[in-house]
């Protein structure tokens, strides 16, 4: 059922659950909970269509490494950021959960269901290619065309008698009394204000807004009653670094794009995080240039390559895990507010030496693999070796916003527990990648859906 904010206010419905946000996380939780005949309300700030008045609320400032405009890096619309995602899917690796309070097997239970929701075929297992170099090949599957959660569930919501949706409803803050969230303050674009009550609240507004809303709600409550221990709130924010890191001259006709990463054993041995490498075909003119360069540096090999062997030149790209650091964080601006009165976001984000080490060591092992198997040779760009800065005009990142309300074992090191419940609150939960304590190298949507299914399951049992 789709109702305006005024109608929701007038009807005075007893909602079992109020879900803030209709992206992959919020929608997945909502659809699952509604199956149990619970009264579920989705509160979405955007409209069916993209609107400038909604989108500009996402405006903010980035301090640190070059990054995208924050107003373009996510979508404030029904269906959330599934309105602009590319559909890349893969589950996180076992090793990615090393510092999570849950393990891969806790999410594997929801693997088949996540495949179905994202309309994916089975994703093949990783294949070890070289044990000594620690290289394995992995596969992405594409949700194609990428599932748009708004379009996918619109009819279902419209026809439902217990799943409600209100659009153009901006949540201003969460109100807490003791250890209960008793209501949320909501405003529409006609300045109509309402207090929405529910038994349980699920915050699913994305990897930046979840922190922003909690920081602002805390600031507006007496004695920080929303997030009681807020030491890590907004902190340990992460993205995936995405850069072209080198060129490969190869005597092997690789498929169009191939993906490689290091085995868990090799990552542990090298004391680095997870990094995915992508090998793309390059143009013949690019190939000539790189082969000439290789011949100058390795004349003997150059002669060998110019024999009867096929010569293919590739570009090596990497998308890798960022070290979670306290200083990479979301803060509220002390100077600027959006037109609804909420402080704008300031995002502090910078690569660390350790981040560069992760991509360098991974790429070095890939170079070793090419030599061990005699498949080619790799040249890494100077900045990967530590000489100079990474380029400012590359892909830069993956539009993957993770951390800020991380999952952990105690309130002093996290915002939510292993069930995504905010520490110290009886009825407040968080869905989405803001709960990731570590990111892995894989695009996060698949894991977001798995985690959301797990959260819905937990709520239904509670």
């Amino acid at each position, binding site marked *: 059922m789709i109702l305006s904010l005024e109608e929701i206010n007038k009807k005075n419905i007893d909602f079992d659950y109020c879900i803030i946000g209709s992206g992959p996380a919020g929608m997945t939780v909502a659809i699952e909970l509604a199956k149990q005949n619970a009264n579920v309300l989705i509160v979405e700030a955007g409209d069916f269509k993209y609107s400038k008045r909604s989108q500009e609320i996402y405006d903010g400032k980035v301090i640190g490494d070059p990054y995208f405009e924050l107003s373009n890096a996510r979508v404030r619309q029904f269906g959330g950021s599934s309105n602009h995602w590319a559909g890349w899917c893969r589950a996180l690796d076992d090793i990615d959960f090393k510092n999570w309070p849950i393990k891969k097997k806790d999410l594997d239970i929801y693997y088949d269901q996540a495949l179905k929701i994202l309309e994916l075929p089975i994703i093949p297992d990783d294949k070890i290619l070289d044990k000594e170099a620690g290289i394995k090949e992995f596969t992405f599957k594409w949700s194609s065309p990428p599932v748009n959660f708004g379009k996918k569930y619109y009819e279902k919501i419209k026809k439902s008698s217990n799943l409600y949706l209100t659009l153009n409803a901006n949540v201003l803050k969460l109100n807490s009394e003791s250890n209960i969230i008793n209501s949320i303050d909501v405003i529409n674009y006609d300045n109509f204000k309402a207090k929405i009550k529910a038994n349980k609240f699920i915050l699913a507004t994305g990897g930046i807004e979840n922190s922003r809303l909690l920081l602002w709600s805390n600031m507006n409550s007496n004695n920080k009653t929303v997030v009681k221990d807020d030491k890590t709130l907004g902190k340990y924010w992460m993205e995936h670094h995405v850069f072209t890191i*080198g060129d490969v001259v190869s005597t092997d006709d690789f498929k169009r794009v191939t993906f490689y990463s290091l085995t868990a054993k090799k990552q542990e041995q090298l004391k680095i995080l997870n990094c995915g490498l992508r090998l793309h075909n390059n143009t013949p003119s690019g190939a000539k240039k790189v082969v000439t360069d*290789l011949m100058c540096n390795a004349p*003997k090999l150059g002669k060998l390559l110019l024999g009867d062997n096929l010569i293919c030149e590739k570009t090596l790209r990497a998308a890798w895990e960022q070290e979670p650091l306290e200083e990479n964080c979301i803060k509220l601006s002390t100077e600027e507010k959006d037109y609804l009165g909420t402080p704008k976001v300031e995002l502090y984000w910078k690569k660390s030496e350790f981040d560069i080490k992760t991509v360098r060591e991974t790429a070095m092992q890939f170079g070793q693999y090419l030599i061990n198997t005699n498949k080619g040779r790799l040249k*890494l760009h100077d900045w990967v070796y530590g000489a100079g800065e990474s380029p400012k005009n590359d892909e830069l990142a993956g539009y993957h916003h993770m951390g800020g309300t991380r999952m952990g074992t105690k309130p002093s090191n996290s915002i939510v527990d292993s069930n995504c419940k905010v520490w110290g609150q009886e009825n407040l939960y968080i869905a989405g990648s803001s709960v990731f304590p570590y990111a892995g190298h894989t695009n996060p949507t698949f894991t977001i859906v798995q985690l959301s299914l797990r959260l819905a399951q937990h709520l239904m049992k509670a």
Partner: protein
Amino acid sequence: MFKRRSFLKIFSLLTILPFVNKTSKKNKKIKIVNGWILESKDIK
């Protein structure tokens, strides 16, 4: 006598096997020249 010989045979195989395994899967020696990750013999 037969038993002793068999034992020695198995023992010698066990000592050789890890060595064979190690050498056949060993990383080749690399050298970095102007950003290229090369096998040492590429530049000799």
